[in-house]
């Protein structure tokens, strides 16, 4: 009780200083304050080299190369284990003795509610508006390859998780980088520790960026959009929106009002399903435009008229948005998946294949198709507004539904990321009330900052921090590939020879 009072009081005093500054232009002030930092961070992470006139950021090459190598190393695990992954999610191998523990379905659904969200709605719109329809092709390909990255990191996340004496579980890259690499020898132990610390630092940044500011920013943009765009009385009140969201998030993470989070976790899947169904409905209503859309996607992927950087530019946009949306290789999902009940870590890897598949191959493709077939593609509109306009061509009331969905997605993603960030934070600074509250208050500050900034600055910072996590994470994964391979082979032999016990679901 006292903990929550301390948190909320300091939160209020933090914001109390804002309205004093000036009645107008608070947004602008926050924006100007943060922008130099966000530019510097983005510049460092996206150090790039020119290919065919386009600056290709090294981090993107890093992600795609890893996903490709993992796919080949595990001999197309993303296809091979697709069916078995589904059987696991369906509960075919669920141990009845473990009823009441976290099932594969629950681990996947939880991880998905952290990733399905604005990346699928706003991110795809950005990709298609900057890279043309062809970007969709590369997005699907990146999602497909990303399945193997998720497989690798989630298997490791379960294998090297910490099961504490009090019955709680913590897992994720911090743990497998430290424990996994330590198994390989003394020199590796220090290297692993270094990677884990780097990962934790970037993860905290990511929890302030893509997991927070980007969410606040885009959900606010959508709210302004439905309430009348530029003319809306909310248009210059980003800080106010940020304040409201910060209070709601604060109630959950500081006030410990779990009910709000629990309700969100139950509504979000239904919003996602509603979104997918509405998208499918629009596609069906325009079924005659679908072949043309696919033709545009395929030809656009390899020709790219009028797109900056030609084909490379298109590829870059598609890969970038896919990576941001499904977070494969970033390591965040390994934290979410690690609480599952299983004694075969590789099973959670199979289940995790479905995350990029649902997130990118299914949901992102639907968004892209809706934007393309409704002819809403307009380079002057960006982010979530483009998607909103596209859906509005079929259902005029849909922007309102989308607004609710966007708000809920943003909220649940923030709650998830506040947890990831906190785990990284306590990994660095230890677990106690002071470090705990410090992190949470910082987190809430960035909610307000995110909704006050222009989209460009927010996206750059968000991308930078989320992608930076991939450096230590994937580097460590390369060294741990043999561990995953050993688990995989042993399990696959058991599976193929029928030694696994199937549950009697009668």
């Amino acid at each position: 009780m006292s903990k929550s009072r301390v948190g909320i009081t300091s939160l209020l005093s933090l914001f109390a200083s804002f309205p004093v500054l000036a009645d107008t232009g608070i947004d602008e002030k926050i924006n100007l304050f943060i922008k130099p930092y966000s530019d510097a961070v983005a510049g460092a992470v996206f150090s790039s080299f020119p290919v065919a006139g386009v600056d290709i950021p090294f981090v993107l090459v890093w992600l795609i190369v890893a996903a490709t190598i993992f796919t080949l190393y595990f001999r197309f695990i993303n296809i091979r284990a697709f069916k078995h992954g589904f059987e696991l999610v369906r509960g075919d191998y669920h141990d009845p003795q473990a009823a009441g523990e976290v099932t594969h379905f629950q681990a996947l659904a939880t991880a998905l509610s952290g990733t399905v969200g604005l990346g699928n709605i706003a991110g795809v719109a950005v990709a298609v508006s900057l890279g043309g329809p062809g970007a969709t092709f590369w997005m699907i390909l990146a999602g497909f390859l990303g399945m193997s990255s998720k497989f690798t990191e989630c298997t490791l996340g379960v294998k090297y998780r910490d099961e504490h004496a009090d019955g709680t579980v913590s897992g994720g890259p911090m743990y497998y980088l430290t424990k996994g690499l330590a198994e390989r020898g003394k020199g590796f132990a220090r290297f692993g520790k270094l990677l884990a610390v780097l990962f934790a630092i970037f993860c905290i940044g990511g929890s302030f960026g893509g997991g927070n500011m980007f969410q606040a920013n885009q959900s606010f943009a959508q709210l302004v959009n439905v309430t009348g765009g530029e003319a809306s009385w909310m248009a210059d009140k980003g800080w106010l929106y940020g304040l409201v969201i910060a209070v709601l998030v604060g109630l959950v993470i500081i006030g410990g009002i779990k009910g709000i989070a629990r309700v969100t976790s139950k509504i979000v899947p239904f919003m996602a399903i509603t979104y997918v169904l509405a998208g499918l409905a629009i596609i069906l209503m325009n079924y005659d435009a679908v072949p043309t859309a696919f033709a545009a996607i395929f030809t656009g992927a390899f020709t790219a008229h009028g797109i900056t950087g030609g084909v490379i530019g298109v590829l870059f946009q598609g890969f970038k948005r896919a990576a941001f949306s499904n977070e494969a290789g970033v390591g965040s999902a390994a934290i979410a998946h690690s609480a599952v009940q299983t004694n075969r870590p590789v099973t959670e890897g199979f289940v995790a294949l479905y995350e990029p598949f649902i997130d990118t191959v299914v949901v992102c493709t639907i968004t892209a198709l809706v934007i393309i077939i409704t002819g809403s593609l307009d380079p002057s509109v960006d982010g979530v507004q483009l998607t909103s306009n596209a859906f509005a061509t079929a259902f005029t009331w849909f922007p309102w539904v989308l607004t609710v969905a966007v708000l809920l997605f943003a909220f649940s993603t923030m709650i998830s990321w506040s947890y990831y960030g906190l785990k990284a934070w306590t990994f660095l600074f230890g677990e106690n009330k002071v470090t705990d509250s410090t992190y949470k208050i910082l987190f809430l500050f960035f909610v307000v900052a995110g909704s006050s900034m222009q989209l460009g600055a927010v996206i750059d910072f968000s991308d930078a921090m989320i992608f930076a996590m991939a450096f230590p994470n994937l580097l460590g994964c390369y060294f741990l590939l043999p561990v995953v391979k050993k688990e995989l082979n042993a399990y696959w032999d058991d599976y193929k020879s029928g030694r696994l016990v199937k549950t009697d679901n009668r």
Partner: protein
Amino acid sequence: MSPVLMVGIDCSECGDRAVEYAIKQARLTNARLIIAHIIEWSQFSFSTVEENAQRHRRREEELQRAHGEIVDPIVARLKADGLEVQGLVRHGHVADTLEKLARENGVTNIILGRNGKSMFKKHVFGSVGAHLVQSADCAVTVVP
């Protein structure tokens, strides 16, 4: 082989009539007794990351509470009465799990107390008794 009676208990008081009936039957037929309590749980529900991380601990707590507050007191009372009795607590869908427990333990008769839910609730959510009458492999007795 002696008969095995299984009593499904909702909460500490509401199974009382079912338990009394079961005691009478057990004395008459020299039957073994099982006192079962099911904690409503679905493997397809949605949860937050934090809930998942704490799930194992919560489950232990739920099992402990169910045993301590609901099942064990009844078991102790019946044992003191000289009956052969065993307490079981499981997570799952109530009717399905009772049915499974019955199969696993060779139960010959499942005994339930009627909980007097309103017609509306019964129609919308179904009742455990009605479900078991339709699908169980053994006799089902519903005590009014």
